[in-house]
């Protein structure tokens, strides 16, 4: 199915959704508003003429300083006769599709598609981790690649490439030369005591 046929089908199936075709060199690309993302996704997966059963990847692009700043990108594929979605009787033509959702900088939240494609779980966590985009109704929205106590979202364009910061769980040993010598002496005395539990008697002449 070509891009215009796909567009007509979606506009009929999801009335009210703002679906716009975008130009791309490699595959049909559609922009969808985030309020209708779930409905459009469900049609894409379940319609026997489309059968986009495989969600290939979920990612985001930070378009700073443009607005809308964030762009969610969903790649999906229909793999033809290799897999039919439930309820479909004949295979659809193998094809790929890219779906985009623009998100404003001050309200970067989007519904999670994990209910439609469970494979989106980790990729969405990754996008949350690296871009700080909130996925509404995600079952387990935590950081995944960065440490749990990391501040900021590294793949945002305004996040610095290098941060010079001491690790939080370790601080370098600070000690003066006198302290060091005293420490050694204490250790030495303890070792002597261990070796000779009874102090040697002083020599009496």
């Amino acid at each position, binding site marked *: 199915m070509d891009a215009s046929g796909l567009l007509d089908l979606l506009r009929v199936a999801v009335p009210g959704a703002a679906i716009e075709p975008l130009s791309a060199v490699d595959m049909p690309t559609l922009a969808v508003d985030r309020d209708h993302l779930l409905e459009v996704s469900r049609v894409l997966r379940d319609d026997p003429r489309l059968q986009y059963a*495989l969600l290939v990847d979920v990612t985001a692009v930070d378009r700073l300083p443009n607005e809308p700043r964030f762009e969610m990108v969903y*790649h999906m594929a229909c793999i033809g006769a290799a897999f039919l979605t439930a309820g479909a009787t004949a295979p659809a033509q193998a094809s790929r599709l890219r779906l985009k959702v623009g998100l404003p900088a001050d309200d970067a939240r989007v519904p999670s598609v994990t209910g439609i494609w469970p494979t989106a779980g980790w990729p969405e966590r990754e996008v949350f981790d690296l871009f700080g985009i909130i996925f509404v109704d995600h079952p387990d929205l935590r950081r995944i690649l960065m440490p749990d106590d990391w501040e900021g979202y590294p*793949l945002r364009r305004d996040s610095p490439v290098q941060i010079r910061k001491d690790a939080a769980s370790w601080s370098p040993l600070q000690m003066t030369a006198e302290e060091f010598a005293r420490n050694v002496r204490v250790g030495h005395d303890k070792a002597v005591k261990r070796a000779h539990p009874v102090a040697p008697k002083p020599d009496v002449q």
Partner: protein
Amino acid sequence: MPELRSETMTVNMGPQHPSTHGVLRLVLEIDGENIVSAEPTIGFLHTGIEKTAEQKKWQQVIPLVERMDYLGPQSNSLAYCLSVEKLIGLEMPERVTWIRVLIAELNRLSSHLVWLGTHGMEIGAVSVMLYCFREREQLLNLNEMLAGFRLFPSYIRIGGLREDLPRGFHEAVRTFLDKFPAKLDEYHKLLTKNQVWLGRTKGVGQLSREDTMALGLVGPLARAVGIPYDVRKAFPYLKYETFDFTVPTATAGDVYARYQVKMEEMRQSVSLCNQALARISPTGAFDCRDFRYVPPPKDRVYTEMEALIQHFLLYSQGFNVPKGEAYVPVEGPRGEHGFYVVSDGSNRPLRVKSRAPSFIACQALPKMIIGGLIADVIAVIGSTDVVMGDVDR
């Protein structure tokens, strides 16, 4: 007499466990020997390659992406280069395409050999590892011949290849390909009908067709449950449609089925290598000859002013890639592998995103190991063939 208490125990498997392929940490809740729940924790190998790539020029990203999936480095660079070339609209001469096919298939063999060796060793067949690494060594020698670098050759470049094939490469590949099928039979003799191997792998870590597709698993994992999806057949790149090969499948969906699929894939790869090698002419083009993207030949650089300027520009400023985005997947050793590249029209990428098959496979681990035994966890991890460099990037 006090009442017998039974409670589950939480065990940390990894991140230093030798059989977790690097630094995968699994938090397992076990009831005796049975797995009640499992949670993979990743990120120990996160090096921010995608962020680093945004600071580099287009051509400089190749060594970075090769270090993601470090067992199949050339499938990373191939996927990245195909995406960027799609964005630019570059057409490759046929000879470059055939050489790339040969390299991609040799790379698949090399990756599968490491998989088979470590998978066997983890389950207890230590000798398999020695056999597999013997052949992998020869493949690494081929890489060394090609680029002087055994693990990360960075030989595939945007716009073609780095240089022409070295002298004697044809003969070296021919020698390897002639000997390899007999070695493959050796592996089969060691494992395929081995009672211990069958006992450890049959019926372990099973997945259903529906779960596989819902979890986005493609590649050998999907083919082992009877989903004959192969990017090379469904969405051909590198003119794979002109090659004669089959997509091996199995239906059981367990560890043994994955083993069968991958073993047969190796045989198909040998056949593909033979076909590609026959098509590669001894001399000819090794890049697209479009000097906006690849450097002019050295003899021209030394004699012509324009060529020298172009050479200087390419190595100091790089080239600009038209505004837009592209995603061209390849069939990597672990399944569909692709790079989503976005350009804002400058000489550096705006975004480079790897679709990492290991990352997706890692997500599906709990589905495969919950309900099984703790000893089977290792067999399942081995069969999914996750590479932590690819998971964490």
